[in-house]
């Protein structure tokens, strides 16, 4: 049921990558609980602009949970307290009247802050460019059954492919590890015949790019999978390890 709540927003403000940041508190009055979290920030930004202050910078695009642009570490969780949902899918009904809501940027050495709550996630693009694709042309559509793919493999590949590359896994990880992201991208191809052709080259290239960019070594705490808005599974990491080790041992 809809109602209005008032709360304190404690937001990380940082003027630029090299600038020193700090928290700033904002009192939010009578926000309807069916406002989305990002809409609530829009309301705050309009107030700030009216007062002649700098609006808060944060990433967003589709606002329907598919692009992976929104981020925000809210009350100790990437994408906030809801599970299996992105920040843009988070609603104010999750919060209580009088609460203090702490909003921070993703924190990881490989994701430096650009401004306020916006971080540079270019590192993920670089990992994708290193091998997260199929290099040959697929040609025209063939008969549906020309290449047989078991249902379980197709389902798992699809589940892995739902990763939107938002970086919540890295943000959640005490080791700053990107293994859940990379393993999802490796898996979505490795499970399908079209992807198998280049599986060994792909996993080696993507892992080595990931290491080069300074992401950490996974210690299997599982915080990534627990916080992932797309419920990407931990077993992807085991698959990536297996693919990588087999490829290296064969070399």
């Amino acid at each position: 049921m809809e109602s209005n709540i008032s709360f304190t927003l404690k937001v990380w403000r940082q003027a630029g990558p090299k600038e020193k940041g700090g928290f700033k508190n904002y009192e939010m009055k009578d926000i309807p609980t069916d406002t989305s979290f990002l809409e609530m920030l829009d309301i705050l930004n309009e107030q700030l602009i009216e007062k002649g202050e700098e609006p808060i910078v944060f990433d967003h695009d589709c606002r329907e949970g598919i692009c992976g642009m929104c981020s925000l570490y809210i009350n100790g969780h990437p994408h906030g307290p809801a599970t299996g949902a992105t920040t843009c899918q988070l609603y104010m009904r999750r919060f209580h009247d009088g609460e203090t809501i702490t909003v921070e940027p993703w924190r990881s050495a490989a994701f430096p802050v650009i401004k306020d709550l916006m971080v540079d996630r270019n590192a993920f693009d670089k990992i994708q460019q290193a091998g997260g694709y199929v290099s040959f042309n697929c040609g025209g559509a063939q008969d549906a059954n020309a290449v047989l793919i078991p249902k379980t493999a197709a389902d798992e590949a699809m589940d892995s492919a739902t990763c939107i590359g938002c970086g919540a896994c890295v943000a959640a990880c005490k080791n700053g590890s990107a293994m859940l992201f990379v393993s999802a991208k490796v898996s979505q191809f490795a499970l399908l015949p079209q992807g198998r052709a280049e599986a060994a080259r792909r996993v080696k290239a993507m892992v080595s790019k990931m290491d080069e960019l300074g992401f950490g070594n996974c210690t299997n705490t599982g915080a990534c999978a627990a916080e992932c808005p797309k419920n990407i599974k931990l077993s992807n990491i085991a698959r990536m390890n297996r693919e990588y080790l087999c490829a290296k041992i064969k070399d």
Partner: protein
Amino acid sequence: MWLTNSSVGRKMVMGITGLFLVLFVTFHVLMNAVALFSPEGYNAVCEFLGANWYAILGTLVLAAGFVIHIIYSFWLTLQNRRARGNDAYEVSKRPATVEWASQNMLVLGIIVVCFLIVHFVQFWAKMQLPELLGEHLEFTGMGYVYSAFGQVWTLPVYIIGFIALWFHMTHGFWSAFQSIGANNDVWLSRWKATAKVWATVVCLLFAVEAIWFTIEAQDKSNMDKYGINTEAVVENAVSDAIEAMGITITDVE
């Protein structure tokens, strides 16, 4: 070399050495169990594993396993801290599915190392080391057990070590299989369950043994019955007597 240069390779080294240590610890606890039932049997085991070539080889392999595991653990932890960066979150919550142990493996490992140092001073430094130096042992295997556990502080120190080991193994065991790629959705819960059971059996048995030795060590007659190395007593007496007679023996060879 990908075993040092790649994150997946480093984790494999961590996992393999960790599993090797799990196997060793399991072997160790079973060997101790002999002493619960038969002090003479345990003395025989100790004599068998004295300073023979196979025991020395085993010790060297084991030491290598420990050293690699420990070096990698510090190295990986340092890298991970750097990857994480210096800015800590103001508010940070651990999701319910994340094991506490998994986030504190280095601390738990360091507690285990501290325990191991005490353990080495009490046993290895008195048993295999002097034998390697060619000295005669004053006590039997059971003798060293009684003299160590006769001290009041020994039991609590050991129990702390076992608790740290339990936490370390409950996470480490399944994590190692994940690291070497031997895991999937079905096996994840199986490995986790096996890890809990394995760690609990091993650590509980260690604890039972430590408590039992502490009780037995209170009864001084046990020391006289099983603890004295009679052969060494005779040999030492002979050399003492020779010395007393003022004769110096030079190597005949």
